[in-house]
């Protein structure tokens, strides 16, 4: 049995028939071809799969596609506008906030939400806000630096 859902992803409306058990990350990666969102752990721990759903961050590896019916989703592919990088993307680039890049989409999506909630975070608030995202390469140092630089750039 398949279920018809309607989701808006990066401002584009999709009507898709999905298996009820299909995960949101599966919808994005397999059905819609948006492979920028990654699967790292399958258990909501690493945060590589974080996307924005109706503004909130969700771990798309533990959210069913059917739960996204009617929702507005933003993925890493939808962050840059008219070819201009989002300030958080720019800050990650400027501050060497990534190495292998696999956790990066989730990190950037998480930081965008964090800065909307708290435009002027302290370093410790950034670190606390990244509890749900694991990076094995950077030791977090430059990710925190990037988040703070983005806050500055966004006028926080």
């Amino acid at each position, binding site marked *: 049995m398949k279920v018809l859902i309607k989701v808006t992803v990066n401002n584009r409306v999709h009507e898709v028939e999905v298996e009820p058990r299909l995960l949101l990350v599966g919808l994005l990666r397999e059905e819609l071809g948006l492979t920028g969102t990654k699967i790292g752990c399958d258990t909501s721990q690493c945060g590589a799969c974080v996307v924005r759903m109706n503004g909130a961050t969700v771990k798309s590896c533990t959210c069913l596609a059917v739960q996204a019916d009617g929702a507005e989703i933003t993925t890493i592919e939808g962050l840059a506008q008219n070819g201009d990088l989002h300030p958080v993307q720019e800050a990650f680039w400027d501050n060497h906030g990534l190495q*292998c*890049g*696999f956790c990066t989409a989730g990190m950037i999506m998480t930081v965008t939400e964090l800065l909307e909630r708290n435009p002027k975070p302290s370093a410790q608030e950034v670190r606390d806000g*990244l509890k749900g995202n694991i990076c*094995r390469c950077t030791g*977090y140092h430059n990710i925190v630096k990037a988040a703070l630089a983005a806050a500055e750039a966004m006028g926080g």
Partner: protein
Amino acid sequence: MTTRLFGSGIRRREDPRLITGQSTYTDDIKLTGMVHAAILRSPHAHARIASIDTSAAQGAPGVLGVYTGADTDGVLNPIPCAWVVPDSDVKTVAHPAMAKDIVRYVGDAVAVVVAENRYQAEDALELIDVAYSPLPAVVNPEEALQSGAPQLHEDAPNNQAFHWAIPGEGTDAAFESAEVVVKDRIRQQKLIPNAIEPRSAVASWQSANKELTLWSTSQNPHIARFLTCLVTGLTENKVRVIAPEVGGGFGSKTPVYADEMIATYCTMQLGRPVKWTETRTENYQATVHGRDHVEYVEMAATREGRITGLRTVVYAGMGAYLSTAATGIPTILHGLMYSGPYDIPNIKTDVYGVFTTTTPVDLYRGAGRPEATFLVERLVDLLAAEVGKDPVEVRRLNLIPKFDNGHDVAAGLTYDSGDYETTMDVALAKVDYPQLRQEQAHQREHGSYIGIGVTTYCEICGLGPSQVAGAVGFGGGLWESATIRITPTGKVSAAVGVNPHGQGENTTFAQLLADELGVSIDDIDIIYGDTDNTPMGWGTYGSRTTPVGGSAVVLSARKIIEKAKIIAAHLLEAAEADIEFADGKFSVRGSPDQNKTFQDVALMANLAWNMPEGVEPGLEATTYYDPPNFTYPFGTHIAVVQIDPDNGHIVLQRYLAVDDCGPQINPMIVEGQVHGGVVQGAGQVLWEGAVYDDNGQLLTGSMLDYALPRAHLVPDVETFSTVTPSPTNPLGVKGIGETGTIASTITIYNAVIDALRPLGVTTLEMPLTPERVWRAIHQQG
């Protein structure tokens, strides 16, 4: 004058695709007709397979094929061990891609299902009925070597995989006559590497031409091709291995694995591209682990604190089979580094490689050297406590004095260059060490426990001379390659045999080339990761990519300029000896107006309308660079921890690293390597550990159970450096990818013990969980 890019912390060229989600990792690949494999793994650590019934799975929706060890037996050769350390009686036991008769660890592959999609493949796995007769498990390497322990392999009596020794004549006598001896038992717990990208493979067989293309999460595609051929019987000219974007490796993506070979078998059976991607739980079971030593270590010294000998017995767990580089890690990469930065006259060790019913062990960031640094630095701290001196003073007493070009140490290595005391003094000054000790004393008076750990380390990397590789049983060379091609418009493509996967050589190699060739960095393309369009090379591990691969790049660039000079001289009607090259222009000495740009020469070389006699058209050069020695980076790290004696909680307050990797091509990238390495090493001492129960079940089987460093648990890492060039390569650089991990575990460990010593705690087993710390404090009463 063009700005030199060597030394400039420019932002990375690889980042735009990574921060926009446009990069392609293996699991992102989708091929026409592609189907999906899922692998059934043993739930038992050790068992005899009585029977396997796949009939229900065969008929499940979407299923295209189900295969077991009975199918692959005799078709796929055993998974090879590619490092057989000589004079060590190595038992290279057979490692079948899929177990047919006996499973030897939880995660051993027993069957594979291929279906139209992954959900269907996973569903069908559950329909396979395997009857197991469980056998006893053994998970601790020291226990596995005892008589009466469960036996894994008939051809490895007592589970002994090898015995390697440094006989260290004179060491026993040094201990007998020693004024002071300190000793400890160290458990280097088993670690799970945890690259955030799980392993993945897409295997595609074209039956008409009998050609295989294998996309694989590999740190070393050329080695992967070589070993894939050994397993499948295919020849190298018919196998193309592509490692696209690779999401971290830390050593765990160097070996050849059964899974990729199983995917290859499946595509050859079905004639359709097959994708296999591990889950995180599979990653924990079937991707290699690191460390896993039980060590008995002791140090002999004078009453003054001068080290006279080091003696160890090491039981190194290999897991159930010998993975690709397993035997070299606790031996060549460990025992030979027992001198660290110290002048230690006598060194003796016996290292036993031991099979256990656990996931195989292989390279994991630092691989052997963190363990060596740990035990040496642990003993130095114990020695300082024993002779009643500050740990820094004991280190100062034993450090090898500054040297620029070669220093022999007792274990037989020749270090390249070192200035250990300077890095130590820089680090001590940065933290204001005397003030820090005063603060510690002050806090103790008020019942607050802070601890200070100081490590002086030296490590071996930049692997390495191929002749040495051969002499120590490494089944490959350790040179590197670069082919540079110049297009008619003067654009540069450099294809290299290494395979960076986060370390940033797409940027640093381009910096080198921009300087050497005088072209814009935007005109340079670095190509890697595909055996079809890169020259043979041995890959990215052992902090070798820049010292060895970067040297090949620079030497090729110099060959390009040599040839271009000949062409420019011809075009300018000048003698070649009179041609100068600077800022992208070839000019006649004394007449700078008479010149040809690099682009002019590139065009004329490619058109070949007017070449000097005997000079071939084109502008291209290849270098195979084999370094004359390894590189030996070094440094001093300092950690400050605070311990809450009421609950055993450790806070890592401060971490400072002063490292010397020679001149830095891109300091921003160097710092990033140190930050990450330090936190990875912090993970071992504070949180991480693969825990098995007595039945060989991996209790830390997911990220829910295996504790990794997270952002809120660690401080910023303060980084500083000194510059001591290496005489072993044309860049003077040393590897920096592993130093953080090599130094940080013991630095933090020693800081914790330093804090706890007044409470009577002098030893603890890692990871230093609050419970362990609390119990240790309270057992002291």
